[in-house]
């Protein structure tokens, strides 16, 4: 795992730090009243979205959900566009028509925007994978979903159809132990959701979702497998949602002990320590990362704030292609 060169590690760290910075800044912007809609907290999920996205090739496609800011960034969506989406500006990926990470797709970047209905995007991702198989292209679709969404019929249908058609797709299940206020024990009656994979005929892998290297390694294997034509894989990444479900959720229903336990496992803090320990990171590099990220964030916010709102006269444009 430490065979890859220094820059890769710094990149992983950078993407995770950038993800958190975008998240943090979004929350401040919301508190300043600059975001009309809501924001989904990303804290705890950075290693999953970044690790998985970093395992993909440029030709691949992702279909993320609402805690995958990192994957958007890795694929090349700028912080400015992300802020502008939250701030409902016309420069955003949805031209101000969709809210927060919803509809934040960009086909040029290989990102399919999602709709709220969970996990509907899994079924859409199947179609991307299908097209690759259909045209004999060595491309892979990777999609994310949640532990809560795994109870929806669309989740099971997707695993089954992917397995039957042997599609080049990777499913990442981000198990953060809660679906909004609902803990796992009221969501499902098994000990590990990875069992779902076997029941539909695809391999299932469990990884430490707060360990970006583990996520990346497992993703790489699954992606390679898919690219080879060996079909889909389900990766279950264990983590914990460290904030409320969305902006206005105080998440009082989460036991403090549980949060404290997982606070120890912060994906960024721990990865940083590891890099220091392995002498792959020094203070100066860290400082310059922070500086660069600050700059990007500020520039992004500035750009987004300068972006105009959509013109109401455009309201009915583009219902049809």
């Amino acid at each position, binding site marked *: 795992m430490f065979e890859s060169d220094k820059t890769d590690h710094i990149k992983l760290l950078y993407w995770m730090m950038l993800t958190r910075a975008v998240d943090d800044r979004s929350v401040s912007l919301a508190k300043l009243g600059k975001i*009309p809609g809501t924001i989904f907290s990303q804290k705890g999920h950075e290693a999953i979205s970044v690790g998985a996205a970093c395992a993909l090739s440029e030709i691949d496609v992702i279909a993320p959900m609402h805690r995958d800011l990192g994957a958007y960034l890795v694929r090349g969506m700028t912080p400015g566009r992300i802020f502008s989406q939250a701030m*409902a500006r016309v420069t955003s990926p949805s031209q101000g*028509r969709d809210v927060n990470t919803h509809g934040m797709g960009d086909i040029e970047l290989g990102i399919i925007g999602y*709709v*709220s209905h969970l996990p509907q995007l899994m079924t859409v991702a199947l179609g991307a994978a299908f097209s690759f198989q259909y045209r004999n292209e060595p491309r892979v679709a990777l999609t994310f979903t949640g532990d809560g969404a795994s109870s929806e019929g669309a989740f099971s249908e997707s695993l089954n159809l992917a397995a039957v058609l042997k599609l080049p797709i990777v499913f990442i299940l981000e198990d953060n132990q809660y679906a909004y206020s609902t803990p796992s024990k*009221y969501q499902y009656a098994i000990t590990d959701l990875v069992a779902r994979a076997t029941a539909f005929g695809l391999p299932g892998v469990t990884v430490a979702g707060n360990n970006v290297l583990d996520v990346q390694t497992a993703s790489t294997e699954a992606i390679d497998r898919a690219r080879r034509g060996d079909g889909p894989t389900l990766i279950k990444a264990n983590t914990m949602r460290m904030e409320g479900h969305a902006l206005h959720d105080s998440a009082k229903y989460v036991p403090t002990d549980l949060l404290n336990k997982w606070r120890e496992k912060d994906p960024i803090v721990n990865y940083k320590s590891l890099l220091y320990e392995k002498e792959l990171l020094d203070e100066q590099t860290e400082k310059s990362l922070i500086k660069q990220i600050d700059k990007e964030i500020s520039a992004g916010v500035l750009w987004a704030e300068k972006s105009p709102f959509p013109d109401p006269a455009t309201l009915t444009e583009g219902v049809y292609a």
Partner: protein
Amino acid sequence: MPEITFLQAINQALHQEMKADDTVFILGQDIGVLGGAFQATAGLFDEFGRKRVIDTPMCEYAFSGLASGAALMGLRPIVEFQFADFISTGFDPIVQFAATHHYRQKNPLPIVFRAPWGGGSYAGPFHSQCPEAWFAHTAGLKVVIPSNPHDAKGLLISAIRDPNPVIFFEPKFLYRSQRGDVPSDSYTVDLGLADVALAGTDISIITYGAMVPEAIAAAKTLTKSSISCEVIDLRTISPLDRESILATAKKTGKVLILHEARKTAGIGAEIAAIISENAFEYLDAPIKRVTAPDTPVPYSPPLENAYRPNSDNVVHAAKELYYF
């Protein structure tokens, strides 16, 4: 009578009916410890426990179907969808099983499918929808959308006691913005009856839900131009109160239909059709519809503000009608 919010009125209806009838239970996502995404079920879990206030997994299909089975066996389920937008995920068992069961099998099926509904809060295309027309077009369902705290409580209690599946949409824009006098005791407001929210003589504004306050505001503005509007609050969308619709159309001869849902094949179309079939000779001007356009609900405030009808639009359209 104490003044309470629309949300509190809903909450009171749930409390009182669950207390009065132990066959009533409620299920949905995050309605227990959390009290629901909007706190509509706050306190129910503490009072009635997990047995009667059930936080389900995410499975709109299965829990909508479950409601039918429980109703068949004599219970009175209340299903909460976290947003009306997610009713499309549980659509199949509602429109196929629940809607058709009595016609085919003659067993009553008392279910309420509740959901926070409609726009106005910049929540984007998937947290703002008004899908009532899908259900109004489906035979065998009742559809109810209240416009004020008093009706919200009374209609919800009626819906719970009704022997049929009832889709009960709650304009979430009104949850905290609308307060009103609401009797603390239990009472019912009959399903199927529209309300004359404001009597008038020149123009009929037929509307429902969160557009009722807009219509009333418009009517007030219009009195300054000496235009007298009658505002009809439908309350029940399906089956429609044809008598009230025709009565007001015949009375004023000028009809403005107002709703927050998209125009094409919406409830407004049905109202226009009913009037043009049955009160044609009484009309002094073309029927007018003021509705959202045929697009998804956009997020950005300038777009949603243009999308969602408001009292200004109503004033404008009413004047056109008046001076026709």
